[in-house]
């Protein structure tokens, strides 16, 4: 079956619902799925944040300090560390007045990958290219 492309589309704000967090952790699990697949089969996810889903992604989060739970920022960094494609909708960031340079990176962890702030047309293309689209 080869490479199956998936689009994980997050529409809910982080911390408001559990599923917006679960989208990230499910996407990250592509790193270990090969143990359950035949040789040569892979899953390639793209994690997309649109609408209210762009809320709660900013760097500088203190969730562990204040609530004792891992922050979305930490999860995003882990995504970048495992070379996951992360797209954040440019128009929606602008709508909420969130500067693009507030998006976290994982340079301190040695990741080359960065979040891509992309126009919605590019996110739509990722959805069209995917075999399955999962909305969270």
């Amino acid at each position, binding site marked *: *079956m080869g490479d*199956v492309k*998936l689009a994980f589309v997050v529409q809910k704000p982080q911390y408001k*619902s*559990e*599923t917006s967090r*679960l989208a990230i*952790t*499910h996407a*990250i*699990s*592509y790193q*270990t*799925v090969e*143990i*359950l*697949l035949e040789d040569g*089969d892979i*899953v390639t*996810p793209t994690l997309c944040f649109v609408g209210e889903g762009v809320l709660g992604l900013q760097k500088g989060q203190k969730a562990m300090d204040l609530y004792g739970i891992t922050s979305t920022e930490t999860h995003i960094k882990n995504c970048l560390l495992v070379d996951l494609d992360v797209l954040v909708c440019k128009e929606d960031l602008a709508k909420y007045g969130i500067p693009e340079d507030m998006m976290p990176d994982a340079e301190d962890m040695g990741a080359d990958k960065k979040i891509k702030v992309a126009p919605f047309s590019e996110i739509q293309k990722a959805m069209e290219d995917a075999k*399955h689209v*999962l*909305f*969270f």
Partner: protein
Amino acid sequence: MATLTIGCFPGLVGNMTYDFALKLAEAAVNKGHKVNIWFSGNASGSVKAKQKHLKDYSTGEKHLRALIEKGVEICTCEACSIARGVDKTNAIEGIQWNAMHWYLAKIHASDRVLQIGGE
């Protein structure tokens, strides 16, 4: 016949979305399709055994047992379940326990995927 994988995330009680997911699975398996169900988020609490079916509340256990009997593969996210105090010793037998990559692996082999969102 096709393979359908359902990602089920809503809680058992509080809405009818969970009920819909199980009804849909039943309809698909009755038509001869292969069906997989992945529980994550609040849905992972529904794998606890000894549920009492009060008529004012949705119930999962008897429907899950029937689906397992019909060959539906049902798996819960282990981390999600144990975070809610449900573990293998107090869960419905026949439910599989695994990590999120189980869902991705089932998706890989599926013709259709329905992601049924939760809270």
